[in-house]
């Protein structure tokens, strides 16, 4: 079936089989491989994308379901040559080791800070609870979220 949606700000029209998951559409058909598949069952958050601004697991959505909606993947975050403040924060705080989980964390952080520019520790925890990282032990990721909040405030 044919679907039309906004992908990283651009109108996109593609033909998809009914059983194709969003993550398969992104990675295999559209070559947007920044979205990762870890568990394939909603537990790790590596496949997180923003659907109408809200984090969802792209391994648990059919491509057909995003018809008419707005999808943001990690590839859509930077503006021209400049990285998004959340991306800069993850780099500057060294919150990235193997990087497998990073796109998911960055998008979860982006949406958290859009809704709540000044999150408390407990709120950060809830905001990124759907994302697992096997490398960093999360302390650096907390730093990254707080640094991102600062960067966003400086920009405004």
């Amino acid at each position, binding site marked *: *079936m044919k679907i039309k949606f906004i992908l990283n700000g651009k109108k996109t029209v593609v033909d998809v*089989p*009914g*059983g*194709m*998951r969003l993550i*398969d559409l992104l990675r295999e058909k559209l070559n947007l491989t920044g979205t990762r598949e870890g568990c*394939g*069952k*909603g*537990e790790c*958050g590596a496949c*997180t994308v923003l*659907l109408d601004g*809200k*984090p*969802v*697991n792209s391994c*648990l*959505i*059919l491509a*057909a*379901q995003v*018809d008419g909606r707005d999808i943001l993947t990690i590839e859509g975050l930077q503006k021209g040559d400049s990285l998004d403040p959340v991306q800069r924060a993850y780099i500057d705080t060294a919150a990235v080791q193997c990087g497998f989980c990073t796109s998911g964390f960055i998008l*979860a952080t982006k*949406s958290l800070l859009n809704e709540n520019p000044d999150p408390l520790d407990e709120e950060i*925890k*809830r*905001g990124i*609870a*759907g*994302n697992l990282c096997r490398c960093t032990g999360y302390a650096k990721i907390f730093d990254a979220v707080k640094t991102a909040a600062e960067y966003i405030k400086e920009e405004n």
Partner: protein
Amino acid sequence: MIPEIEYIKETELDLALQHLASDKKVIPFAGGTDVLIELRKSKNPFDRKALLDVKGLGLNDIYIHSDTVIIGAASTHTEVEDNEIIKSKLPVLTKASSLIGSKQIRNRGTIGGNIINASPCADTVPALLLYDAQIVIRSLSEDRTVPLSEFITSPYETVLQKDELVTEIRAFPVAEDYGWGYYKLGRRGAVNISRMTVAALMKVDGEGKINEIRVSAGSVFPITSRISDVEKMLVGEKPKAEIFRRAGEIAAEKMIETSGRRWSTPYKESVVKELIVRVLNEAYSRCKNDDLS
């Protein structure tokens, strides 16, 4: 990929119901957080099926109508968690919804899907049982309303027929002077299918005695249910540590009576006792009664 599956979306209820009434194997789904995982695990992926997306039907209104709170079956856990009517009228449900899975899961998973999937650890069920929830069901030939306490018949089984959709859930709020408690014990950190959940509503009268009490438990009995023996024992008693402990013992006895003794019983027995005490304390601490100091 889930091979060879057709995706159907309708915006009108009758058209959706026609698909379900046809001979084809059509599975309705909402958030897909249970169904898509099941389908990928299915041993027979080439058994050709169609998925009917009920999110196309709306079914996510939440409103109040003559003291009944009506919740569209396809409301997401996030929509329920953030809803002001539910916060003030059904606080136990707000709490339950807010503790489900992760943000990502709550943004997709729905209250209807949670109930219909009928997992013993479905977190909204113990909360909704306290509010005597009813499930509103539609098919082309009939509309019916079934109490939640009769809707789930065994783990992962409900009274829902192949040609039926759940359109809404109705819940009946209690007065503001009731205290409430909800306690979920998870095995893992934030993302978990809960292993035991208890919920309670309590009202204390002018003499400081328990006037009304409702207690429910998930993953304790084969089917999530109210614990009427505990409720009966507590009515008329003064809320005291010793009475709450007795309530916990009754719940544990009831659990062993319905499920028999298993390897996990010693663990579960002590946990159930403790959780009942905690949830009753929590409910009592929220009881509003001006006569009590």
